């Protein structure tokens, strides 16, 4: 017996190390390195400075991924974020063109986003029977509709002067501000999710809403907060998107919601709720961004990139399921 227990102690560190590599996040890190090697091989332009220059355009989606991961972990979904980005960007551009000081414009942009998220949250928490998919589908149409009305018949607005927004898109050396912002926010969101009561509550709600309620968690208040945060982050994404695009139109932010959900799912977060880690989602986001930049550099048709992303998304969920099925089958054969 002693020998056996001794062996298990001796094996312990190795097992933990193996577990780390074999976990979904470990696989993603390996995939991330593989994608980078692949991109370096296919294009001589894939260098650190070029990647950093291309990055701000894509990083805006990471802002949405962070709160979207919270929502998915709670077992909810929000498909209105793309429209919130569109509305916030429209408001910011219109306000700035009217000569409102830049600080106020930033506030308008963030508050618009937060108000939209709050509306989603209020409807969903007052009428808990409603599925989030349908409510955010309706608000998706409404928010983009309001943006369309604001934009008028032209359907687009461009900044007449861009001083303030140019300030946001500035750089420290070669690294744009937005990269720092993403890193800080990603770290913050991850810590809140895995190390605070609030984060653990999200998992509790996602695993079993009723049990969480009986355990004394204010489920509806938590959902309201998370939806408002999602709106706020969408406003932030809109602000940075405007600083890249210097304008907004009716299709701004189209498909952001799907991209954010795809990143989260690829990162191992289940849309059923209660499962997954934000770290995985963030690594997955960077894999997708690197792949897009790399394949964009060799002028590959963007549609082919979409096809690759779609297949990756389905496979990332399908393959573990199949492996699990095979394992179960072989186990049952052994039992017999």
């Amino acid at each position: 017996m002693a020998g056996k227990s001794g062996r298990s102690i001796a094996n312990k560190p190795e097992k933990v190390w193996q577990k780390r590599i074999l976990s979904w996040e470990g696989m993603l890190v390996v995939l991330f390195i593989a994608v980078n090697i692949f991109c370096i091989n296919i294009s001589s332009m894939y260098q650190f400075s070029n990647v950093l220059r291309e990055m701000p355009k894509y990083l805006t989606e990471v802002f949405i991924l962070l709160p979207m991961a919270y929502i998915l972990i709670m077992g909810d979904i929000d498909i209105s974020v793309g429209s919130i980005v569109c509305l916030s960007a429209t408001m910011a551009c219109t306000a700035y063109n009217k000569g409102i000081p830049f600080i106020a414009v930033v506030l308008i942009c963030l508050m618009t986003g937060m108000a939209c998220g709050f509306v989603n949250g209020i409807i969903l928490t007052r009428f808990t029977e409603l599925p989030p998919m349908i409510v955010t589908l309706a608000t998706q149409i409404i928010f983009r509709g309001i943006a369309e009305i604001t934009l008028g018949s032209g359907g687009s607005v461009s900044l007449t002067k861009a001083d303030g927004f140019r300030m946001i898109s500035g750089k420290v050396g070669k690294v744009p501000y937005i990269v720092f912002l993403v890193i800080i926010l990603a770290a913050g969101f991850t810590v809140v999710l895995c190390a605070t009561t609030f984060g653990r509550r999200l998992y509790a709600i996602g695993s079993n809403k009723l049990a969480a309620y009986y355990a004394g968690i204010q489920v509806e208040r938590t959902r309201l907060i998370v939806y408002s945060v999602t709106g706020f982050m969408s406003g932030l994404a809109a602000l940075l998107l405007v600083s890249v695009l210097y304008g907004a139109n009716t299709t701004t932010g189209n498909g952001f919601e799907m991209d954010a959900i795809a990143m989260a799912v690829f990162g191992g977060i289940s849309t059923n709720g209660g499962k997954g880690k934000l770290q995985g989602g963030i690594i997955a986001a960077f894999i997708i961004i690197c792949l897009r930049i790399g394949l964009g550099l060799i002028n590959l048709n963007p549609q082919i990139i979409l096809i690759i992303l779609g297949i990756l998304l389905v496979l990332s969920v399908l393959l573990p399921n199949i492996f699990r099925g095979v394992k179960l089958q072989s186990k049952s054969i052994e039992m017999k």
Partner: protein
Amino acid sequence: MKKNKSILKTITTSREISLLVVLVLLCAAITIKSPSFMTYKSIIDMLRNNTVTMIMAVGMLGILLIGGIDISVASSLALSGMTAGMLMKYGVVKNVFLIFLIAMAIGGLCGLINGLVISRGKVLPIIATMGAMYVYRGLAYLVANNEWVSAEDLGTFSSFALDKFWGINYVIWVLIGVYALFFVMMKWTRLGRKVYAVGSNKEAASISGINISNVELFVYVMMGILAGICGTIAVSVYSSAQPNMLYGKEMDIIAACVIGGVSMSGGRGSVAGALLGGLVLAAIAKALPLVGIEAIAQNTVKGVIILVVIILNVITQRTIDRNNLKEREI
């Protein structure tokens, strides 16, 4: 007295009848404001332009009934429609019937892949169809190869949407046919009842001997075939084919179902409901410009209407439940 009460009760409890009342009131209100709405030509126009949404809504009904969702429909529609358009442009296939068959086959294949991934691979429907949405749309772009199909390329095919048989467009005949087929299938065939059984309670259905994954596969393939039909119809109605056609239409289709009282969690909903939901959306889209609301505000109004309908639905459901409880107390 008793009968009177029961009529009121049927109106408030039956989703389809209350929706029909809403639709009639809506049409009446629009007609008073603008008499040109209720003419034969205008109604035929309205139906023709919304055939795609309405046909797809009935396929989506099947999927929502088993508690699934399919957001790849607009993409598989674009893929099959684009392929049909390109085949006609280069004169490979001229026969209209054959074109429909090819498009249905492509759509069916798309649906089959979705269905296999969801029913055999146990992937959540929203994830599987989201991936498929990217893939099929991308394939549509690849098929198009930076070209698009114009009305001239289509030749006689664009008249398919305009030609009439007994005073009704072929397109609308297709719509009527699909709805008749689904109405019969959902109500009186074993397959249709199995779909309801799976949606209401998966475990019970499984224990009673229904092969759940086959039913799931069936509804997704059916949706794909309908998407194929709609792809061809969309090409002829808009007399052009572009890879980005009907982008984002899947949300309209789901909205039509939800307005028609189809529950997203499965088991509740009917073919008549989907039809009425599609009609309400179509009437609203047609009526807004007539009553003087600018085209720009249409989306907002549409969104608000969807929101109001679903919230009203919850409120009525709550009152019904409360009344039922009260009756039991007495």
